[in-house]
């Protein structure tokens, strides 16, 4: 068990997301930074999509009620275990009664606290992710609150301490801007329907992330995007990463808690292997979109998979845990 002591922000239980329920309107949910979630789980020998605690940049304290291996990934929130530093992208071991404390994020936004065996709340519609709008999944379908006690799954992971290279260092984007987070974008179906100057502005603007942003989507502040001719579209399925451009309005990037469907014209889609970069850019921060084609997007996907494969191989080679010690499935 883990006891939540002090969640000031919007901490929640998230896993790799809920797939296969779009046809009844249930979206993915899941970690905003799935790369961080996966990394934390690999460090512990868990299934890659096992459930963890997602903490969006605000201070938080929790207490381990049992001896357990745990891992931190995602943002650097200056975490301390029983007063001593607990680095990011790092696995450590907590004794029963020890407290883990996270501060304001110093780098990035979303932190993940994963435990060996995974957070073992009851799955809803096949996932432990919290569906906030629907009020199900995660811990009682809601954000975490002081006094909540989260069950953890069985694991034989031992008292080792080790870490892996940060994803920003392992997966650089060549020539990325200094003034903004650069993400790669595939033009979407209505790209050509936007006015030429709006298309140009889309690629050249350092877009500011509005404070009116959340896990469902990030609204962007910058020049308005105009359509060459108005289109009223039929509603259709959406995926995280789609950038919609309401007529004369602010672009919106659909993210983990996005609606499963919508009908504003789509100017582009942030490629899935870059979504974690958006998740780790704070509100008020800036984003730049770099145009890519299908082959470049595939190369980005393959680079991310190769990074995860290197982590897997390295951990297996070191032989920290017996092969039998595996976390519960996601």
């Amino acid at each position, binding site marked *: 068990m883990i006891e939540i002591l002090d969640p000031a922000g919007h901490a929640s239980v998230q896993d790799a997301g809920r*797939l296969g329920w*779009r*046809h009844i309107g249930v979206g993915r949910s899941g970690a905003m930074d799935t790369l961080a979630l996966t990394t934390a789980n690999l460090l512990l020998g868990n299934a890659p999509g096992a459930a963890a605690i997602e903490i969006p940049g605000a201070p938080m304290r929790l207490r381990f009620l049992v001896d357990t291996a745990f891992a931190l990934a995602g943002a650097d929130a200056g975490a301390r275990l029983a007063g001593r530093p607990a680095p990011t992208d790092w696995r450590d071991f907590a004794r029963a009664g020890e407290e883990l404390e996270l501060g304001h994020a110093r780098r990035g936004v979303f932190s993940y606290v994963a435990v060996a065996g995974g957070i073992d709340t009851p799955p809803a519609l096949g996932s432990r992710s919290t569906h906030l*709008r629907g009020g199900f999944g995660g811990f009682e379908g809601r954000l975490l609150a002081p006094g909540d006690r989260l069950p953890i799954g069985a694991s034989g992971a031992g008292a080792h301490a080790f870490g892996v290279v940060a994803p920003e260092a392992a997966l650089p984007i060549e020539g990325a801007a200094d003034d903004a987070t650069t993400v790669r974008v595939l033009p979407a179906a209505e790209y050509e329907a936007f006015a030429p100057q709006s298309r140009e502005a889309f690629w050249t603007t350092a877009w500011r992330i509005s404070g009116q942003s959340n896990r469902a989507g990030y609204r962007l502040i910058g020049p308005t995007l105009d359509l060459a001719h108005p289109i009223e579209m039929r509603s259709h*399925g959406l995926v995280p990463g789609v950038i919609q451009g309401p007529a004369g309005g602010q672009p919106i990037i659909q993210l983990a808690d996005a609606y499963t*469907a919508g009908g504003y014209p789509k100017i582009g*889609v942030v490629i899935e292997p870059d979504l974690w970069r958006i998740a780790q850019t704070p509100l008020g921060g800036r984003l730049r979109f770099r145009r890519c084609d299908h082959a470049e997007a595939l190369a980005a996907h393959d680079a991310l998979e190769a990074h995860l494969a290197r982590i897997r191989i390295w951990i297996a080679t070191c032989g920290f845990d017996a092969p039998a010690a595996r976390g519960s499935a996601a």
Partner: protein
Amino acid sequence: MQRDRAREAPHVSPMGLGAVLFEAPGAFDLAAQRRVWALARAVEAWPGVVEAAPGMTNLLVSFDAPLRDPGAVERALIAAWDAAAPLDVEPRRFELPVVYGGEGGPDLDHMARETGLTRDEVVAIHAGRDYTVFALGSHPGYGYLGVVDPRLFIPRRQTPRVSVPAGSVSIGGWQTGASASDGPSGWHTIGHTSQRFFDPGGSPPALLRPGDVIRFVATAILP
């Protein structure tokens, strides 16, 4: 008036690396939608397909890995569309009581102004026909209903409302529906129903399913 965009031929576009959107050609009508349901059934059986989710005369197909050859998927989808015969669904009927206008229907006046109708006419036209559940989507249990009378056609709001309550009855383009939970909306909210639509522990969790027939019944029109 802004009209909706009809495709002249079946259209397939990428949605990132691991999904594609199929759009049926022609008018926004039930005949096309019945073919979309048939296409969804066929595509769900393809290897690597995680889900085929119908929208309004379109279909989002998600795969378990990035597509290495999107052109092959496009060709297969168009061939499957050509082969799809309209799916027959046994409709169930639901009558949803609606209080139009007032606090629960803040956009009724705007609708009347934009369409040149009176408030009572907007209500009479909206409640005066059967709608078919074309698809479920947006948020859990929400049914997209069609087709709205042309006199009530109205483009979506330029800026979505931050939140409308569960039960909000709204119109967007040719589409109408009733919110299944509180949340943002880019449509025009003209009334409110007390009907519940989703229970995550239920079997099935969603009240509605594609093909069901809905009738809105005006219980009051508030100023």
